[in-house]
Every structure is written in structure tokens, then in C-alpha cells.
């Protein structure tokens, strides 16, 4: 059986000045490396509205994951660096390949390149990109982009020129992950040899997508299934729920049209798959989650219900010291290197 890996996952949408959020997240990820986490994943968001309440709904985030991860590469020695995700329809594929190749070169091959067929029409319009109104057409263009990305990363001549990618990116095409929302994309990603990144608040249950991925995976190919789990460790479930209330209400309201029906706060927390309470309660809750058996990398997010860097640091510490070990994860002793820089 594949060894379970753990990651820290952040959307960088916490309350506060953006530059401070970026710096604190870098600190948090540096600490995660010390604790033995295998990977750090960052989400990407474009633009902000003029106003918006701070908190989960704060309309900011990180638009340039590869630039951000380069700063993390400079501060760490071992932890793997993941984009979750680069929305290919909003990007030029050659520029993505270039940025990814440079980061991979600077980080000694630590990049994990997550991509998606994402992008909202209004955002695309601002970028001068026409997504079209036809879903099939958008999907077809995404698949073309994805194929071109892998080919350019593998050193093929760049379309329309007599030139190749520089710097070379050996092996990076084998470290592409796709954001997968449906049974079909889980299945297709497996056939393409890519990993899949699965969220827990989706229209299709995570285990359906994950099972389709495994079923389609060619014999002998190592599976790569990343699953985002939101956790909130506390002294007990009641205390946790009280801290989580505002974020749970906001997230549930955002997704209530397609989330499982829920009325009470407990039901809503269950509907958005937040795992909370004492560390052993969180471990039990994750073990009982239907997608867990399919998961090769648990991507822990500690954003819900936390309002300070100190709280997030404590939550990440609880993941590494109690929650993940109860799920069968062991830190690799060879990885217990806090800084191998010259």
C-alpha cells in the first residue's frame, strides 16, 4: 500500500493585510517543514472586489503561486512545493511552463504542478481571455493546453517555433496534478498519468471521483490522490464548533444549493467536511470519511475557525504530532532536516 503523505494547504485568504498574510504563511510552511510535512500547497485567486468583509469571505488571495513558492523554496530545503492550482484557461501555457521550470530549477526539483480547467467569465474578461459559452469547447481547449504543457515540459519543440523550453525541466511533466471535480475527470486524469487534487465540498462526493481515478489507473502506476481536509483541533467539539461557527455558516451558505441539506451547525459542519474537536476525534472523523481510503496525500487546511498565526501554528503542530500519526503517517527520519542550506 502506498505510504500516506501529509501536506499543509492554504488559500491565503485570511483576514489582514495581504503582504502580512503572505509572510505569515511562509512562516507557517517553514514550520510545517520542521514538523516533517511532505508538501505545502497554495491555492490561487485572481483579483479582489473593492470591499468585502474580512474572514473566510475576504476577497483576496494569491494570484501568483509560482512566485510565492519560489520565496518558500529559498526558505526551505526539503518540503515539496505545490500549486493548487494554476487555472490553465486564464494562462499562457508556455509562460506557465517557463515559471514552473525556473522554480523547479531553483528548488532542486521540488515542484508539484497542479492545474485546472478553471476560470470565471468576469475574471477571464479582465485578462482579455474569451472562455466561450460552450462547455465542451472549453474542455477541449483545456485538454489541448494540458497536452501542450506536458510536451513543452518534456523538451519538445514549442509549437510554431524551432525552439525548446529553457531551463529544461526533467521529470516535471510526471509531476502534473489536475483538479478533479467529477467521476469523468478522475477517470481521465488517471489515464493521462496525472495526479488528482480533490476538495471536500463538491457537487460529486470526493470518494466517487477518487474511486474513478483508482479504477482507471494503469497497472503498476503509482496513484497520486490529494484530498483537502479542513481541521480545527480544540479542547472539545463544543469549543471547536463555537470557534468554527462564522466560517461554517459562510461556507455552507455559499454552497447550499448543491451541498447535502443541513439545518443545525453540526449538520452544516458535517456537510462541508470540517473535522473538529480533540485530535483523536479529528483522526476518527477523517478515518470515517469515505474518500480517505483512496487518498495518498492528506492536505490539511487549518484556516476555518482560526484568527491568528499562533492558532494556525498550533493546529499544524497538532496535525503532525497527534492527528496524522493516528492515521498511519510517520515522519521520515531522513526528512527531519530543518535546514540543509550551505
Amino acid at each position: 500500500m502506498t505510504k500516506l503523505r501529509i501536506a499543509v494547504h492554504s488559500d491565503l485568504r485570511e483576514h489582514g493585510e495581504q503582504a502580512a498574510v503572505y509572510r505569515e504563511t511562509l512562516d507557517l510552511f517553514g514550520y510545517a517543514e520542521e514538523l516533517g510535512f511532505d508538501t505545502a500547497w497554495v491555492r490561487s485567486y485572481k483579483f479582489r472586489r473593492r470591499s468585502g468583509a474580512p474572514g473566510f469571505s475576504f476577497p483576496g488571495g494569491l494570484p501568483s503561486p509560482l512566485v510565492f513558492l519560489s520565496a518558500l523554496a529559498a526558505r526551505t530545503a526539503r518540503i515539496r512545493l505545490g500549486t493548487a492550482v494554476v487555472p490553465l484557461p486564464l494562462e499562457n501555457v508556455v509562460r506557465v511552463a517557463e515559471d514552473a521550470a525556473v522554480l523547479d530549477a531553483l528548488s532542486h526539483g521540488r515542484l508539484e504542478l497542479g492545474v485546472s480547467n478553471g476560470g470565471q467569465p468576469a475574471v477571464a474578461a479582465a485578462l482579455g481571455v474569451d472562455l466561450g459559452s460552450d462547455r465542451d469547447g472549453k474542455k477541449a481547449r483545456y485538454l489541448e493546453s494540458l497536452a501542450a504543457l506536458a510536451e513543452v515540459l518534456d523538451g519538445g519543440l514549442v509549437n510554431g517555433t524551432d525552439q525548446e523550453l529553457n531551463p529544461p525541466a526533467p521529470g516535471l511533466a510526471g509531476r502534473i496534478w489536475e483538479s478533479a471535480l467529477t467521476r469523468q475527470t478522475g477517470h481521465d486524469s488517471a489515464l493521462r498519468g496525472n495526479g488528482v487534487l480533490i476538495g471536500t465540498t463538491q457537487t460529486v462526493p470526493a470518494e466517487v471521483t477518487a474511486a474513478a481515478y483508482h479504477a482507471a489507473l494503469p497497472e503498476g502506476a503509482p496513484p497520486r490522490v490529494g484530498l483537502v481536509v479542513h481541521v480545527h483541533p480544540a479542547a472539545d467539539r463544543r469549543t471547536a464548533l463555537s470557534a468554527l461557527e462564522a466560517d461554517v455558516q459562510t461556507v455552507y451558505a455559499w454552497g447550499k444549493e448543491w451541498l447535502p441539506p443541513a439545518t443545525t451547525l453540526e449538520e452544516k459542519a458535517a456537510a462541508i467536511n470540517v473535522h473538529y474537536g480533540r485530535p483523536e476525534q479529528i483522526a476518527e472523523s477523517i478515518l470515517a470519511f469515505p474518500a480517505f481510503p483512496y487518498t495518498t496525500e492528506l492536505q490539511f487546511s487549518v484556516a476555518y475557525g482560526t484568527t491568528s498565526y499562533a492558532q494556525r501554528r498550533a493546529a499544524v503542530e497538532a496535525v503532525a504530532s497527534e492527528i496524522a500519526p493516528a492515521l498511519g503517517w510517520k515522519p521520515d527520519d531522513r526528512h527531519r532536516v530543518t535546514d540543509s542550506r550551505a
Partner: protein
Amino acid sequence: MTSRVHDEPLTLAAYAILNEPGDQARNYRAALGLFEHAEQLGIDGLWVRQFHLRRPAVATASSSSGPEPGGGLPSPFVFLAWLAARTRRLRLGTAAVTLPLESPLRVAEDAAVLDALSGGRAELGVANGGAAPGLAELFRGSAAGAEDPDARRAAYQADLARLADALDGAALNDAGARLNPPSPGLSGRIWEATLTERSGYDTGARGHGVLIGTTQTVAADVTARAYFRGLEAYAASAGRHRPPRLGLATLIYPARDRETALREARAGIEEKYEWGRAFLPPATTLAEKAASICLHYGTAEQITESIAAQPWFPYATQLMVQTELFYASYTQRADALELFTGEVAPALGWTGAARPSNS
């Protein structure tokens, strides 16, 4: 020494084009080490050039692939973000992002993230260019007006305006979306790399800084004078004065005497002269060719004299020191930077080394 034509303090930056053969990852990491060291030497900033793609090695009879081709750096923001984490004071510049090959808003996003990660140390150099066949289609999906210089200039100016507006927090779509993260002050740190008298003037008239190379079809002092005239036009139309920002690429090769320098740098001088023979001042001897490519070489005193005698020097507010092309090792490059900050730059009026370092 030549008197300067402005009152701005002279600042000092390292400048690298990073276009070298060999293992690219190793080259990048060695360069990063050099630039960390540059901060320790008191250097104020760093500029890195952008190159896209490269020609593959050509197979020969004796090997399945030819010599490792040169390269370059396609992603200056990714590279500079690494340095943002490892330095405290060094200003981090792109010299320059080829704007016609980029989405102006993606450039704005990357620049804003770099600025946030570095505590406001980004210097955003951009350039018109990318006219080689096929490139515009590849990177922007269209090549409208690629053949027509006026159309290209108009498209470049539109991109530049879009970039500056985004950095200033303008609404980007009907829904009122703004650039995130906010980038206060960054639009005041735009520089343009220019090649001609006209573009030098236009850059000044937009109130931007200017980045000038010394091996160009138009003499650097011509572009520099045009830039200062443009700045006056900016002040007249905007009703406010912008201090000049004029960076000059300065290629150096220190040695114990000029003969030794020429002997050691011969291959690099010949190569660079051949590259620019069509537009460089004509030269026959090696010393003439070194002068033609604007290489400053020899002892610290000789390098100082050579730079001070340049017609462009009175206009420069920043020397962008390049230690590439001729160097056998990174140790030798570090030694050259140390000589420059310790002896050459102070003799030219630079006082930055006396400033206490935060790091």
C-alpha cells in the same frame, strides 16, 4: 571627474543576463549566491534580464547532442522572489519584461506578489520587443500589427497603460475587480528599457525610469539626453517633477593591468564584437574591440577613469554592473564586485557602501 547633470545620488546595482551554457539550474543557483553576496557588499539593487526559450543543441557526428546551448532566464519574478526571501535590502528589478509577449495583468499580479513578499523592493522594468516571427502568436495568441512599428508602439503603450492602471488599483472589469494584492507605489517604480532616442524621450515623458545598454545602435548618451528632455515634458504636462532614474549597463573586467585583462577576456571580447559588428563602432585591434563593446577593464583606477570618461556618465543615476561573458568562475565574479564596490564606485561618487546593512 566629469560633472553630473542632475542632483540624484549615484546608486549601484548588479546586472545579469544569465545567458550562459551549462547546467541551467546550477547557473541560476550560483548567480543567486553571488547576488546574496552582493547585498553584503552594500550593492543597492539587482537587475535580471528575461529570455524566452532557446534553440536545441544540434546533434553532431561524434555525439548524439551538441554542446549544451546557452540559455537565459524566462521568469524574472520567480527568480527574484527567491532573493526576496534571502535578502533584506537589495532592490529587485526586471530588466526587462518583454511586454508584448505577456498579459499586462499577469505581469501586474506577479510584480505585486513580488513587491508584497519583498517589503516593497520590486523595480519593474519593461520593454517593447518580441518581434521575432511566431513569438507574439505563441505568447499572446495574436500578432496584430507585428510588421508595423507604429502599430507595435501603440500596442505597447496600451499594455503599459493597462499595467500601470492595474498597479494603481483601477477597476479591471465591469464587476469592479481590482488587482490583488494591492501594490501601493509600484507604478512609480516602472522603468523602460529603451534603444532609441525616441523611446528614451517617450519614457521620460511618461515619468518612468529608463534602462540603457551600452552596446546599441544609438549611442547611450543620445538616449540619455532624450530621456532628460522627456522628463521636462512630463513635468510641464503633469505639473509635478519626477526625479530622473537612469540605469546604465556597465560591463567590467578587472585585472592587474590592461594587457592581462585583454588577454584573459579575449574570447569574450571577440564573441561580443562579432555579435554586434553590424552596428558597433568599427574596430580592428583587440583594444579597439573592447572599447567598441564598452568594456571597462584593468585596475580599479583604470576602470574608474574609463567609466568617468563615458559621454553617458553625467546622466546616469545608477550603474548596473555586469560581471559576465569573461569570467572563469563565480569566485572571480564576486572578487570583481568587491573591487567595484570597494574602490571603483566610491571614486565615481557612490556612497552606498557606507550605509549600514540591515542584514
